């Protein structure tokens, strides 16, 4: 599944995650797996809208895992380790007034995915890849 995400309109943030959630439900996957994917992708989608200008999301669903790739052309992340810390946020006040920008997004994405990598370059953009296993590998 492929989605274009634009930061023009905050109200539309989450549409892609919602569509993926619906598709996973249709496939009859376990509710906890669906919820982990939904939360991780939604926080990622919100980040694209808040922190980057625009981006795209690719989701691949296989019998074994769900792969999410979120690619944006935003400002990039200066210090990924710092950004991963709970509570760290550069989001402006107006974003906090919308209910986001608590600095919980990236840590929560990590918590809800089995694998997560962040590739980022200042002034170029950020790519976040997340994988959620359907049958957790031993």
């Amino acid at each position, binding site marked *: 599944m492929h989605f274009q995400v634009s930061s023009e309109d905050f*109200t539309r943030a*989450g549409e892609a995650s*919602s569509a993926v*959630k619906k598709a996973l439900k249709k496939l009859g996957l376990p*509710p906890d797996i669906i919820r982990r994917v939904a939360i991780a992708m939604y*926080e990622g989608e919100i980040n694209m809208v808040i922190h980057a200008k625009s981006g795209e999301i690719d989701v691949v669903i296989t019998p074994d895992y769900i792969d999410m790739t979120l690619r944006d052309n935003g400002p990039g992340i200066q210090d990924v380790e710092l950004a991963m810390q709970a509570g760290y946020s550069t989001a402006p006040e107006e974003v906090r007034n919308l209910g*986001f920008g*608590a600095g*919980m*997004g990236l840590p929560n994405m990590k918590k809800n995915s089995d694998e997560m990598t962040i590739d980022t370059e200042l002034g170029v953009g950020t790519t976040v890849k997340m994988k959620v296993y359907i049958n957790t590998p031993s």
Partner: protein
Amino acid sequence: MKIKDVMEILDAELIDGQNLLDNEVHTACGSDMMSDVLAFVKDQSVLMTGLINLQVVRTAEMMDMVCIVFVRGKRPDDAIISLARDRNIALLSTEHPMFTACGKLYEAGLRGGCSPQ
């Protein structure tokens, strides 16, 4: 407890979801920070919030929540109502402020849906 019980306990007005009133709820969570809500997971929760925007409904959707209560008499607009209807999420509005609304539900036996970790 059912959504209709929540409605009664909070003297709340049903804004949408007449067909959902018999749905069971076990836990509740009160917050204006949606990223905090997303960081704490439990089934079948009620979300109490003073925040009015579409992301409140999306957050509830991602978390499989079945009911949103807007506190302090706040009322959602049509876009919020129609999204919630599509996602089968009941919408209530209570005049009580957040603290009182949470206390009333706790007293009635509902427990926190926002445990740390």
